């Protein structure tokens, strides 16, 4: 894409010299000899960047700047100043000029200044693309509201999670905006990282909900209990070790076969194991963070047990953890994990129980009958 640049100066010599330098930098250059001509060209060509002399007969540079900003506030306007234009320069600053370069113009300084303007425009475009993306996601979300309410989910329970993420997103954008105004690239970078993270989280959340709210048939298969558990343990155990958490498994009682949807049941278990790991990491000065995964036969059913020595929880929390979007993790958690786990286990004809005390770790018990779900049972939350 060729970028358009408008160059305004009443001296023909300067126009010619600068036009060549700017064309060398890869811009499509339009020139104007005064403010009036400049405004006509500006409206026709919509250049992203305008380079204008500050002192001109008729409409001067400051007035031109003001009118251009009025026409399109996102135009980057660089002012060319001479000696003794201090007052005009101050006025330009007040009107949001991007930069100044002084006559006689040095080619390197010209290049840096135009490049800076270009970068500002790029960041803004990226930000806009992200925001558009996000709006599309949120539109999907509102289509989803109908679906969810038909499932009996109260939107108010969803809204809290979403509000937190949107606030974070606002924060990121605010930092980017401020950074752009102050030309503070550290702040821009910091804000940008937050924007990206928030958009990712919102995306993940919306996609998760879409996935689990969709009418989808469970696909039960008859599989070996022990190898299923082994597979779950292997994947998640590695991750926990990387986070410095000890992972123990005891699968000696996990014998025979059962009939389950392995993909769904694996998700249900992994959600709980990941929570256990989070709980360990949240506990300060925990010397030996540890998660234990057990599976065994009990009264003809398979009993899974996941225990951690993390922060634990009080009664108030215990009552809420299975609610959609209940999370104590701020922007680090969406509160979908246990909601999903409970639905999945319920659809398998099983149940989840919790035992926990603040500061004393938690134990989750999942009971799953060997017979599993009926063939073709709907996997949508009941």
């Amino acid at each position, binding site marked *: 894409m060729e970028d358009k640049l408008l160059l305004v100066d009443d001296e023909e010599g300067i126009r010619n010299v600068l036009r060549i330098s700017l064309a060398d930098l890869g811009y499509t250059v339009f020139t104007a000899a005064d403010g009036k001509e400049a405004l006509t060209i500006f409206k026709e060509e919509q250049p992203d960047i305008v380079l204008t002399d500050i002192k001109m007969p008729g409409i001067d540079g400051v007035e031109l700047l003001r009118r251009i900003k009025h026409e399109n506030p996102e135009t980057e306007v660089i002012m060319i100043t001479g000696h003794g234009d201090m007052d005009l320069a101050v006025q330009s600053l007040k009107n949001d000029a991007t930069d100044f370069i002084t006559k006689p113009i040095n080619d390197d300084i010209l290049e840096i200044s135009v490049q800076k303007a270009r970068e500002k425009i790029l960041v803004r475009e990226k930000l806009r693309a992200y925001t558009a993306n996000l709006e599309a996601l949120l539109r999907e979300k509102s289509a989803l509201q109908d679906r969810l309410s038909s499932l009996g989910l109260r939107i*108010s329970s969803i*809204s*809290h999670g979403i*509000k*937190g993420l*949107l*606030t*974070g*997103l*606002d*924060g*990121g954008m*605010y*930092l980017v905006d*401020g950074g752009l105004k102050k030309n503070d690239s550290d*702040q821009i970078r*910091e804000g940008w990282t*937050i924007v990206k993270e*928030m958009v990712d989280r919102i995306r993940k959340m919306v996609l998760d909900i879409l996935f689990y709210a969709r009418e989808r048939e469970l696909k039960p298969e008859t599989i070996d209990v022990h190898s299923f558990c082994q597979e779950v343990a292997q994947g998640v155990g590695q991750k926990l070790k990387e986070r410095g958490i000890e992972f123990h498994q005891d699968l000696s009682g996990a014998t025979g076969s059962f009939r389950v949807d392995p993909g769904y049941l694996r998700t249900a278990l992994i959600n709980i194991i990941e929570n256990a790991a989070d709980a360990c990491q949240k506990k300060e000065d925990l010397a030996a963070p540890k998660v234990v995964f057990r599976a065994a036969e009990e009264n003809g059913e398979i009993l899974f047990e996941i225990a951690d020595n993390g922060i634990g929880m009080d009664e108030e929390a215990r009552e809420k953890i299975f609610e959609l979007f209940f999370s*104590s993790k*701020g*922007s680090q958690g969406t509160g979908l994990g246990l909601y999903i786990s409970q639905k999945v286990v319920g659809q398998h004809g099983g149940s989840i129980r919790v035992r926990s005390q603040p500061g004393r770790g938690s134990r989750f018990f999942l009971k799953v009958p060997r017979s599993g779900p009926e063939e073709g049972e709907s996997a949508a939350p009941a």
Partner: protein
Amino acid sequence: MPKKILIIDDDPIVVKYLQAVFSDNGYDTCTANSSSEGLEVVRKEKPDLITLDLQMPDEWGPRFYRKLRKDKEHRDIPVIVVSGIDGDHAIQSAVAFVRKPFDPEKLVGIVKNTIG
């Protein structure tokens, strides 16, 4: 001397956001990520105003508020609730109740009206 605002919120991103908003408007800030830390910071920093989140992991905002009101020296510090929860009844004598996501200009307006 610039006025000082204490920000209490468990979400580090929200804290950073509020810090940027307030310092861009000429205020000093200090922060706490929980109710209990909030009380300590109040005593140490003696802020002119407090923004308080309601839902936080260990101790919720209202409990902080009750403790603050029992502290004779600091009971009159104005509190603005900034929270995603609907329920302005939770803290009745708060100066204002601002819902997340919030409009930074409005928030600054409330702060200015309260402490100048």
